């Protein structure tokens, strides 16, 4: 057997110019130099060597510092998302075999029978790194599923950073990244790792911060690269502050990027590179598309390479070195099939030389036996120039079981006298591309549509 190369912990991959690069949130800035040469764990990182550590902190900044400190030391680190419900804590500890919690709220965890290490919410204190041979720490994340016992997915740092690649720091100025995601979710963690190991800085989101203030802060911090879900971006495009923001690179992931949101971003950021990426916590980063068009080139499917894709019964399957190791916990289901492919549950449809995402397998609405993906109807509605975002859902019908209805947010307040005409126009637009059973039976103009903490539209799957 070939010998395993020695693991390179995150702290050894931070690259150059650490004193000039930083992580910041709404109130603090910490340089990478301070992170690499200090402790946020009160100097107790050595006590956590070989342990399975859950990181549960109020702030993303503290979580990021704990990650850098513990990778290569701990056997496992589990990043608790900010909305992990109290009733799921015991199950997560059991499934992940957690034996220590690094937290700024020890009282919340002590009752669960695990040791805690206090994470003081202060800048790191200079301290030498424990002198131990580095281990290949497992990175555990929770999937963004909405209800029930959270599913835990195990990754390696190599798999998580597999899409970041070559990354010789470019001659251009170091990128200043930002993301609307929380870094404790897959989409946000990708951006944290990109900033850390590819020569950049990162401006974190802050809970409860008003969107206009957040965008103004991104402008002040000189953000050059930014990512979010299409729902994040639709909201951002409605903000009065967006006009002052001039990022060079805009990235979408986590939901279907339809043509309307891509076009909206292109109009708002005429000089930016705009890309949409396909990734999931389980399958890892699949690919990025940067031609400004929705969907992806059909030749991506079936081609050899580090990420292989196939379509089975309309569902995208991915085999990739960036995929997770598997689910963790007793009775966890298999994450891959016998050939190593991950069933993404994302349904695609080929139109000409392009595949288009049409929706989630679990989200199909059944209208009298005919299937409708909410996302394909939303994409049609969103083409209307006055529509900023929409949510399509099922409504019970005594005749067809379900019918399709839609909530729509407009780009500007509508006069009551124009609402009927607008609805008729939206429906006429849908009729151009959709068969009758996919056309909303009712449209409601609403002031806002709820976006979950994951950055995705809240869908109540019946």
């Amino acid at each position, binding site marked *: 057997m070939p010998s395993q190369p020695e693991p390179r912990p995150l702290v050894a991959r931070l690259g150059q110019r650490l004193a000039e690069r930083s992580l910041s949130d709404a109130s603090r800035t910490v340089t990478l130099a301070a992170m690499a040469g200090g402790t946020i764990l009160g100097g107790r990182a050595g006590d956590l060597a070989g342990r399975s550590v859950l990181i549960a902190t109020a702030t993303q900044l503290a979580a990021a510092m704990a990650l850098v400190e513990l990778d290569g030391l701990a056997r496992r680190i589990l990043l608790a998302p900010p909305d992990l419900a109290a009733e799921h804590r015991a199950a997560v500890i059991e499934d992940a075999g957690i034996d220590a919690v690094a937290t700024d709220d020890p009282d919340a965890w002590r009752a669960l029978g695990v040791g805690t290490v206090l994470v003081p919410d202060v800048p790191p204190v200079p301290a030498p790194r424990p002198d131990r041979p580095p281990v290949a720490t497992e990175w555990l994340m929770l999937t963004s599923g909405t209800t029930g016992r959270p599913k835990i997915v195990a990754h390696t740092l190599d798999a998580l950073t597999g899409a970041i690649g070559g990354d010789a720091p470019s001659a251009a100025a170091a990128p200043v990244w930002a993301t609307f995601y929380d870094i404790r979710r897959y989409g946000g963690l990708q951006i944290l790792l990109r900033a850390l190991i590819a020569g950049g800085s990162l401006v974190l989101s802050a809970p409860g911060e008003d969107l206009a203030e957040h965008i103004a802060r991104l402008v002040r911090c000189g953000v050059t690269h930014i990512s979010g879900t299409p729902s994040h971006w639709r909201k951002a495009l409605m903000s009065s502050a967006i006009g002052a923001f001039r990022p060079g690179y805009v990235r979408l992931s986590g939901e279907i990027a339809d043509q309307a949101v891509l076009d909206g971003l292109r109009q708002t950021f005429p000089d930016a590179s705009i890309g949409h990426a396909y990734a999931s916590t389980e399958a890892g980063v699949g690919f990025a598309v940067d031609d400004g068009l929705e969907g992806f080139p059909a030749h991506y499917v079936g081609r050899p390479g580090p990420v292989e894709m196939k379509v089975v019964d309309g569902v995208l399957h991915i085999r990739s070195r960036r995929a997770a190791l598997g689910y963790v916990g007793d009775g966890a289901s298999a994450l891959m099939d016998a050939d190593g492919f991950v069933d993404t549950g994302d349904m695609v449809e080929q139109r000409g030389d392009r595949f288009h995402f049409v929706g989630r397998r679990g989200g199909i609405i059944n*209208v*009298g036996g005919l299937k409708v993906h909410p996302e394909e109807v939303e994409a049609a509605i969103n083409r209307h120039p006055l529509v900023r975002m929409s949510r399509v859902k099922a*409504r*019970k*019908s*005594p*005749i*067809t079981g379900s*019918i399709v*209805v839609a909530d729509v947010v407009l780009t500007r307040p509508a006069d009551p006298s124009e609402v009927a005409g607008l609805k008729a126009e939206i*429906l006429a637009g849908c*009729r151009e591309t959709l068969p*009758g*059973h996919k*056309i909303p*039976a*009712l449209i409601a103009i609403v002031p806002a549509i709820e976006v979950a903490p994951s950055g995705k539209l809240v869908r109540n799957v019946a």
Partner: protein
Amino acid sequence: MSSRLTITNLIEEIAADHNKTLKPLSDDLVLLESGLDSLCFAILVARLEDKLGIDPFSASEEAYFPVTLGDFIRSYDHAVAA
């Protein structure tokens, strides 16, 4: 607006949207022969629920399906009165 007028206006609107040719909307018109399909009826019932606040078909305990347009209108009049 009477429920009759609301219903016949909506039927005409939905038929036009779905390119259906309607027979004359008389009380003895058999719904299944009216030119509307079940999807159109599902839309009609949903829009009527939004306009009138009632869905007599889901509200009733037992399954009841009107046969003629007159039956259909009467189920709404009955539900409004109830």
